[in-house]
């Protein structure tokens, strides 16, 4: 994927680019009669799992901060599926907002609505989903395919010896759910991972730790010892899922010898990094995860604020994906991505 600009979280802060307006602490009170404040419309998916939940938190926090800083208003809308997001866009168009920041449930389903926004002459910021054959004002993306690709490459390096020796490496896959994001992660993985990786079984976890745990438990209980012992690595789509898999491994008391050496996740959550060392020590399992931070959404909101302030960002901006494994786990805690992510806690 062509990266036009790699934006570190704090680098794209619009404060620097924008012609800084008067430092009005609370815009609504500061300029009540002069002119109606500009409005930013933000449309996001519902909080249905940890990632969307944290994303909403960051998006709202960012919107609040920036609104106070620059004196605009914002409307924050979430929805459970695409047609409701379409409805939200209609509502925002009725309200004649000045910029729309949209995180579509699924890109193509919002095409028609996105087109309407553009047709109405309203600048549109799209976050994290590609809409086929459509160019919004500006796009900001985490890169799910890239995460998959990087995981594949990591697996190739980790098992370089076995691959060189022509061995087949059996692995398990724990998907998120059945939607596009997991599909992209898997596609990316398959595109780079060596052909010698053999996915023995795939599970769909609905991003739930409990489900992943049950699935792993059942796999361990109902497979032959040889089958179990043959598994060398586990590819997952999410850090929470990793914890579920580890729970099951920890609870395993069967006869088979476990030869799992590597588990991959996505998220680089604090809770997971905490387990890196103890898991390595107890079970000899290495972990790798990719910092796909829910705080990235801040940058989309910042792009919206930039537009409201007269800036004109454009094109496709890709969020940074950082690889975190046992080697840099502790270091990563000082990384801006990590710091921003947990900045909202008291």
């Amino acid at each position, binding site marked *: 994927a062509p990266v036009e600009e790699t934006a570190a979280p704090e680098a794209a802060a619009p404060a620097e680019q924008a012609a800084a307006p008067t430092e009005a602490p609370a815009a609504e009170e500061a300029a009540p009669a002069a002119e109606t404040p500009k409005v930013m419309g933000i449309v996001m998916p519902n909080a249905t799992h940890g990632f969307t939940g944290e994303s909403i938190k960051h998006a*709202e926090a960012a919107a609040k901060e920036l609104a106070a800083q620059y004196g605009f208003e914002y409307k924050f809308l979430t929805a459970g599926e695409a047609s409701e997001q379409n409805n939200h866009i209609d509502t925002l168009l009725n309200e004649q907002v000045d910029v729309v920041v949209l995180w579509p449930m*699924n890109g*193509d389903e919002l095409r028609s609505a996105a087109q*309407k926004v553009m047709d109405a002459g309203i600048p549109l910021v799209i976050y994290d989903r590609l809409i086929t054959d459509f160019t919004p004002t500006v796009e900001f993306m985490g890169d799910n395919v890239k995460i998959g690709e990087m995981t594949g490459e990591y697996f190739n390096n980790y098992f370089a010896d076995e691959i060189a020796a022509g061995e087949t490496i059996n692995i398990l896959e724990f998907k998120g759910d059945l*939607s596009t994001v997991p*599909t992209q992660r898997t596609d990316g993985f398959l595109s780079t991972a060596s052909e010698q990786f053999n996915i023995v079984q795939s599970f769909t976890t609905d991003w739930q730790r409990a489900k992943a745990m049950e699935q792993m438990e059942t796999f361990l209980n109902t497979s032959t010892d040889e089958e179990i012992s043959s598994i060398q690595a586990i590819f997952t789509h999410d850090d929470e899922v990793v914890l579920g898999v580890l729970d099951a491994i920890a609870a395993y008391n069967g006869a088979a010898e476990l030869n799992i050496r590597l588990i991959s996740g996505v998220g680089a959550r604090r809770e997971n990094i905490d387990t890196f060392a103890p898991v390595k020590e107890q079970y000899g399992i290495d972990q790798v995860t990719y910092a796909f931070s829910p705080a990235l959404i801040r940058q989309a909101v910042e792009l919206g604020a930039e537009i409201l302030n007269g800036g004109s960002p454009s094109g496709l901006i890709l969020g940074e994906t950082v690889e975190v494994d046992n080697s840099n786990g502790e270091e990563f805690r000082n990384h801006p991505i990590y710091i921003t992510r947990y900045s909202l806690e008291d």
Partner: protein
Amino acid sequence: MGNLLKKINWEKVKQFNSKYSYLVSFIGLLIFATIINPRYFSYRNLSTLMLQASIKGIITLGMSILIIAGMIDLSVGSLVALVAGLSVVVLNTTGNVWLMLLFCIIFGAILGSMNGLLVTKGKIAPFIVTLATMSAFRSVIVQLGQGGPFNVAADILPSFRMIAAGDVLGIPNLALIFAVMTVIIAVLMAKTKFGRYVYAVGSNEQAARLAGINVDQIKTLAFTITGLLTGIAAFLLTSRLTSITAPNAGQSFELDAIAAVAIGGIAMTGGRGVIAGSFFGAIMLQMIEGILIAAKIPPFLNGLVKGVIIIFTVLLQRKKNND
């Protein structure tokens, strides 16, 4: 004689109150929304509201029939996804919108009647049958699309999306279609034998059977009509979205439809309520979304406020019913 007149009047008043209770809620909600946001009460906003309510609204019509018949359908959301996903394939292959519409109607009706047959021939509770088919329908379309979206081909897209995006004399097409469907179903339920039998079956199945009504047939038909309506909704949804993501298209439409039926004043126990109620119910449910926005409810609290408003809306009607 004066006594008799009095009696009739009293009955009429009571009947009116219980019959049009949904209007009480509707007006209450409208006032509430307008207080929160004075701009709410505008033609443009209200017509958008109806447009927004239309797709789920059409499903709500079907759901009302089922609930009046004492049943329920949890599979409509998945059915939307299944029909809509495949209809994209039909459209892309044939390039013919009418063929696609026909497909949606027929395939929807077939899936609906499948639910109906499982309920009547299999003698399984509707809740369970449709819980199972909810899972099955979704699974089939996700498998067919391998998790990915079904996209309307680029050449057909611009004209096709105008079905949902267009309007007639300033009235959005979707709103118009919703209104027409409501009238058709309202007539079906109030003015035909079928409608009468649906009420009878929902109120007292045994009595209906002893009156010579073919209860199984009515139930199957109710499911079939719901499937058909859901098929139409799938068609419209496809035009509105121009892309169907199998895993979550139509997600939780069933719950929204059921909630709409309930706040439209149709009894969950069957046998009572009118279609006009579900029409307003669907619109009210959409109004709640609008209220959440206007009142600037923090996103995480949307669910709480929505739940409270639903309860409140239903309560408002119950009061009137019981007096």
